[in-house]
């Protein structure tokens, strides 16, 4: 158990430090790299929670796909200019309020203890023995969640069409 606890804290620190660096770095490339660190931390947490399939998805899709897309755009639109300019917008007032409100919430949570959340202790019906994580996910995805899966296919089609329309010079 101890090793799990230690790993949790290691990954959690990775996630948080990565995230803070993402939103504070001046250069977009640095931000992107920090984001990768943060996403890796999240992937680690997936492993801790026995979501191996999600771990793979996170590495391949997120870090391999989305981040490449980001880096590609950062290279494409020249950001040298942006790096020299003012870094933060005028939204800091709203941000301050958001931080204050959320901080108060988290503070109250920590002060009253996690028990106050009343997270229900589930009645474990026993996991389908002998099924690996990927099989479980697949089982769920293609039976109960068949419909959203189909809708997601249209969603991705729209995303492809949309990014092509937007990014091409002339159709």
């Amino acid at each position, binding site marked *: 158990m101890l090793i799990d606890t230690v790993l949790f804290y290691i990954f959690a620190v990775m*996630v948080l430090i990565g995230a803070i660096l993402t939103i504070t770095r001046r250069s977009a490339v640095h931000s992107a790299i920090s984001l990768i660190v943060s996403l890796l931390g999240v992937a680690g947490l997936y492993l801790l929670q026995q979501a191996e399939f999600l771990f793979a998805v996170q590495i391949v899709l997120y870090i391999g796909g989305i981040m490449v897309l980001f880096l590609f755009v950062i290279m494409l639109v020249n950001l040298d200019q942006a790096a020299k300019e003012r870094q933060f917008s005028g939204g800091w007032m709203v941000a301050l309020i*958001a931080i204050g409100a*959320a901080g108060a919430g988290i503070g109250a949570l920590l002060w009253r203890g996690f028990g106050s959340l009343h997270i229900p202790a589930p009645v474990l019906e026993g996991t389908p023995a002998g099924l690996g994580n990927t099989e479980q996910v697949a089982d769920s995805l293609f039976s109960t969640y068949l419909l959203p899966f189909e809708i997601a296919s249209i969603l991705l089609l729209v995303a492809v069409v949309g990014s092509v329309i937007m990014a091409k010079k002339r159709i």
Partner: protein
Amino acid sequence: MHPITTAHYLALSLALLLIGTVGVLTRRNVVIILMSIELILNAVNINLIAFSHMWQHATGQVFAIFVITDAVAEAAVGLGILIALFRNKETVQADEIDLLKW
């Protein structure tokens, strides 16, 4: 040392949500704003996976897959629009996008 519970994951995800929110609200660079949104979606996924583990079924993981799918789609379209805008205007700073009042 306390064992790690679902509540720990919840607290972590709340913190990540907060960081992402601050990023969206304060940064000028649109690319970084989009990255902050990715942080928020990852906060969601941490929750989902933790709850999925807690309930001992795969529903949360399936949900997380959909969230990732959506993140991909949004990022692709968002960056596409960004390129179209950059072509017309040569800026990626959120508050310089000011033809319409922000």
